[in-house]
């Protein structure tokens, strides 16, 4: 018995070979190379010079690096936390109130509308928002028209404001993802539970906090894990909206690494930055997935 199973499993291993080999070549080899470069001084040409942990020592004393991490905290708020909270609220409103009184049709129209930004390329939504937020753009035109000219400003050009504006755009881009997941999670809810709660005089808010939110816990977890990881990797949004500026006010680690790789030819330093993010992502993903696996049994 044991030998047959063993033979069977080796037969199947052939199917894994190409995928595994290609992943090793295209993904693991570059990863190892990045880790190695992070221990060298290298401009991208010539031979890398081994310098040990010098890049990392420099990194931890670099104000730009710490600024980029502070900004990442903001990004995670904009990409993970605000959309989750807003998504929970909207999903409950659409499912438990509008869906019940006006049918599923209107709910799916709303859902599609709010999901749309998720399928548009970030480069394009960035172009669009850059246009709308420009000094002569639509937002300032609206403010002028409704008599709030005093608020007119360069939305992405003000160091104190740019990060908040980026955060708002991120929420706009991201909202559809939790909303769609939550709306489908709500399909699981036993309708009798809501009905019983209503008969007992539970208000909408009580049903929301006592039934909806606890039931959606698994979805909330998935959304927070995946979007937190996405937040750590955020690049395109920053590249197209602000280029990290003004100053370093919207700089994020991925963009900081990119600058060192391709604009400053400081490959060793860029590699140290990206190695740090990679390790952080792997640790966070590992912790969260192990926790989830343990909870699932």
């Amino acid at each position, binding site marked *: 018995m044991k030998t047959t199973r*063993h033979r069977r*499993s080796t*037969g*199947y*291993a052939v*199917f*894994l070979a190409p*995928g595994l080999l*290609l*992943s090793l070549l*295209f*993904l693991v080899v*570059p*990863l190892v*190379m*990045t880790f190695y470069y992070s221990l060298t001084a290298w401009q991208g040409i010539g031979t890398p010079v081994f310098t040990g942990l010098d890049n990392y020592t420099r990194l931890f004393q670099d104000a730009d690096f710490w600024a980029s991490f502070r900004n990442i905290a903001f990004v995670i708020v904009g990409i993970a936390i605000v959309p989750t909270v807003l998504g929970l609220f909207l999903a409950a*409103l659409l499912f438990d*109130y*509008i869906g*019940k*009184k*006006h049918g599923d049709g*209107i709910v799916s129209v*709303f859902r*599609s509308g709010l*999901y*749309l930004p998720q*399928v*548009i*390329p*970030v*480069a*394009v939504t960035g*172009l*669009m928002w850059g*246009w709308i937020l420009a000094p*002569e753009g639509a937002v300032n*035109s609206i403010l002028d028209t409704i008599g709030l000219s005093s608020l007119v400003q360069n939305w992405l050009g003000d160091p104190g404001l740019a990060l908040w504006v980026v955060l708002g755009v991120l929420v706009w881009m991201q909202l559809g993802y939790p909303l*769609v997941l939550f*709306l*489908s999670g709500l399909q699981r809810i036993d*309708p009798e539970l809501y*009905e019983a709660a209503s008969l007992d005089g539970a208000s909408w808010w009580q049903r929301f906090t006592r039934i909806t939110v606890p039931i959606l816990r698994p979805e909330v977890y*998935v959304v927070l894990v995946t979007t937190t*990881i996405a937040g*750590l*990797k955020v*690049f*395109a949004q920053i*590249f197209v909206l602000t280029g990290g500026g003004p100053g370093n006010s919207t700089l994020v680690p*991925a963009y900081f690494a*990119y600058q060192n790789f391709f604009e400053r030819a400081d490959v060793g330093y860029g590699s140290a930055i*990206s190695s740090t993010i*990679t390790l952080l*992502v*792997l640790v966070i*993903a*590992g912790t969260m*997935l192990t926790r989830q696996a343990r909870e*699932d049994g």
Partner: protein
Amino acid sequence: MKTDTTAPATSRVRKTETPGRTFPRRDWTKQAPGRRGAGSYTVVAAVTVFVLAFLAPFLIILVNSFKTSADYRANGSLSWPEQWNWSILGDVWERVDFTQKLVNSIQISLGVVVIAVVLALFNAYAIGIGRIRWRTAFLVFFLGVNVLPQEGLVYPIYYLFKELGLYDGKLGYTILVGITYSAFGTYLLSSVFSTFPRELIEAASLDGAGRWTILWRIVLPMSWPTLSVMCVFFFVWSWNEFLYPLVLLISNDQQTVPLGLSVMQGQYTSDPTAMSAAALLGVIPMIVFFLVFQRSLTRGLTAGAVK
């Protein structure tokens, strides 16, 4: 947005169990639309306004893509065009060689879909159905590879592609992105396959079917619902990629749609309506795709995100 998901199959299995319930939820939700009050219409109106405001940016670029510069300067960005002027879209189309960009994006995305789905299918067949040794370790490997940030890989890839002559070419880029997505596909399909009815495979194997036959004749047709959703998602992801094409596809005749259009950035002051038209050109293909594949997109996202 990438999602770590688990078995769509399980959720579908559960759905088939529901008809036995004493309170079919469809009936229940359909009873409800009797109790509409003025309050509920106010809520619907409020949400409608919210959704319209949410989508307003699309409307704004739509109207401004048809204005002449003179019209724009005279009336600002909020008015309707004095006349619907298609020439701006046409100019931008030519300036960025949009036809070429569309062809590139379609070629690349289709290639990525094929590579990613085939590799994922093979990997998952070995892990989920073949139950090869160390399968958990392999699964963890693919899971880990799946979360790797692209910025942690991009420089060595850029360097190696230059050495190998794959730099600034669609072929190498397509293979790279296909492999990247195959890790996610492997993870997703493996958990779908772990609930695959084993009797079917054993029966076929008793009838003398080999592993290839079982894969093509039994596993592939039965997992088509999951595979089709994967195809749709990989297509969208690949279409929307940013960092890799930014670094690896630099010449005009290799670039994808989003990258080709983003060169218009910064030309705002000189030509505002052209930039609006560029954004519009970038939005349209994905809106069309969204309308066509809406069901797959929402189902795929939700199907198995949670066990």
